[in-house]
């Protein structure tokens, strides 16, 4: 497979906030909307509290507004935001420890700075395009967490395409009206950052600063903001919202990412919110790359200018907002110009006894067994014989493991039958609905230990 080297040169300077109208609303917090002019003032207050020497701001703010202020203040001062994949203290310390001159910033630090007088510090209207605005970290479902620095020009380019993709779905009903975003995901995750921080800062959308959790909270937050509303969430949340029976305010668009969604779940969500649901395909490496309307099983629509080169064990992505080609482990099939379908994930490609399968496909098959409501399939580390067995966790109330295996036997090649298959109460997903491989291994070990004791 050949790789054309494609390097985009960052533009010299970019605006700190892309939409210059000082009166435009950018956020909704504590019962009122906040204008860009107010945000700039708050950015000035917090920026003045940062030491002049450049450093790294570990942005742990939970309040989305405080996150936004700290994020922009850091960039305005030539600092870089660090976004650890979880708030777990040992992970935060690890991230901070590998970046000299880092400052762990929580809500209270920003609140303290904002209570002061306006600062004299001049907040630049522009920043260097090549400045590293943030470093994202992968959540570890494919191995060890890894750092992904993003320069301002790259984030601006990705945000422009996200904005265009959202507006394309809204313009028919709402024309140029400003979309209001309500997000159930944290801003520290790349998806949450792009949709709930960058669209307001580098686009002209506005965001509700809460992170609503329960269905009633989500309904309340949506009711706080005008139409067109955009709900940014995850499959885990969507299922609970759809089943809650609550009447939600009309929501023009729902965005879902972080885990696959099936067409039925997407259709339920569309009904519950009188909405259109767009599933987002992206990664920390690439930012959002494509979207599709899952309820009607659309192929993925690549964002403008992006190109995919499918390979046997992965895909090379080139995009105008990426500094160079990125290798993704997703196996795709091009359907037509700018459209593709996912065929699994390469870290999912497993080989047992010379046969290959994808863990994604095995998981789908196990989940499709009648009586199985959730499942996770992994490949174990090699044992002394060198064989890497498939192991699985499944939630199947009322069934025994042999019953599930008997049904699964008809659906997959025997070499891929999980050994062991362990029935559990729930699959150990993290708060974003992702499933780190290690937590499956831990869950397997825990259940096996308990079995040994019996």
């Amino acid at each position, binding site marked *: 497979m050949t790789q054309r080297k494609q390097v985009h040169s960052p533009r010299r300077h970019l605006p700190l906030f892309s939409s210059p109208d000082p009166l435009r609303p950018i956020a909704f917090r504590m019962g009122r909307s906040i204008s860009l002019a107010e945000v700039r003032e708050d950015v000035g207050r917090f920026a003045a509290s940062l030491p002049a020497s450049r450093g790294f701001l570990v942005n742990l703010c939970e309040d989305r507004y405080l996150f936004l202020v700290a994020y922009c203040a850091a960039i305005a001062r030539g600092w870089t935001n660090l976004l650890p994949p979880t708030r777990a203290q040992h992970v935060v310390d690890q991230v901070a420890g590998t970046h000299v001159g880092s400052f762990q910033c929580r809500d209270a630090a920003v609140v303290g700075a904002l209570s002061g007088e306006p600062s004299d510090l001049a907040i630049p209207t522009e920043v260097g395009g090549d400045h590293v605005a943030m470093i994202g970290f992968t959540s570890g479902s494919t191995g060890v967490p890894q750092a992904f620095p993003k320069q301002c020009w790259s984030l601006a380019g990705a945000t422009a395409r996200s904005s265009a993709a959202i507006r394309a779905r809204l313009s028919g009903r709402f024309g140029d009206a400003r979309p209001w975003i309500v997000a159930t995901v944290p801003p520290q995750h790349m998806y949450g950052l792009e949709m709930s921080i960058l669209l307001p800062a580098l686009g002209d959308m506005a965001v509700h600063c*809460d992170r*609503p*959790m*329960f*269905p*009633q*909270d989500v309904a*309340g937050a949506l009711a706080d903001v005008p139409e067109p509303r955009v709900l940014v969430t995850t499959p*885990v*949340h969507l299922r*609970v919202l759809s*089943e*809650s*029976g*609550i009447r939600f305010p009309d929501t023009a668009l729902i965005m879902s990412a972080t885990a696959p969604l099936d067409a039925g779940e997407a259709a339920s969500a569309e009904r519950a919110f009188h909405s259109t649901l767009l599933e987002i395909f992206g990664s920390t490496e690439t930012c959002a790359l494509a979207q599709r309307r899952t309820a009607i099983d659309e192929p993925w629509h690549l964002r403008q200018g992006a190109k995919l080169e499918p390979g046997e064990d992965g895909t090379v992505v080139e995009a105008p907002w990426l500094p160079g080609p990125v290798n993704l482990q997703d196996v795709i099939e091009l359907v037509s110009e700018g459209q593709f379908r996912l065929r699994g994930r390469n870290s999912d490609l497993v080989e047992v006894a010379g046969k290959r399968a994808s863990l994604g496909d095995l998981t789908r098959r196990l989940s499709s067994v009648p009586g199985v409501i959730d499942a996770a399939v992994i490949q174990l580390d090699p044992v002394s014989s060198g064989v890497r067995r498939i192991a699985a966790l499944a*939630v199947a*109330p009322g069934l025994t493991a042999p019953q599930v295996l008997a049904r699964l036997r008809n659906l997959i090649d025997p070499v891929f039958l999980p050994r062991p298959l362990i029935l559990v*109460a*729930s699959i150990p*997903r993290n*708060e974003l*609905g992702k499933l780190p491989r290690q937590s499956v291994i831990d869950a397997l070990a825990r259940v096996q230990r308990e079995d040994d004791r019996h």
Partner: protein
Amino acid sequence: MPAPQTPAENELAELLVESLNLEDLRPEDIDPEGPLFGAGLGLDSIDALELALAISKRYGLQLRSDDDANRRIFASLRALAGHVQLHRAA
């Protein structure tokens, strides 16, 4: 020995075990005053969502987390049962 549960607490404990598929746990073994999350039963935010959904279906009560009361409500089985009894649909 955990403290004894009231009938309302026991009913909620059964709902909790059932809705979160905590098959290894008997409802009566949940300490009504012990923490549900973190170090206690080890529930997480996804469990909180599931539990809220089960409570809304059983009791017609929609939980909210828009203030600090939420931390108090989810602090223990006793606190949650008290909240449910106080606010459940008639």
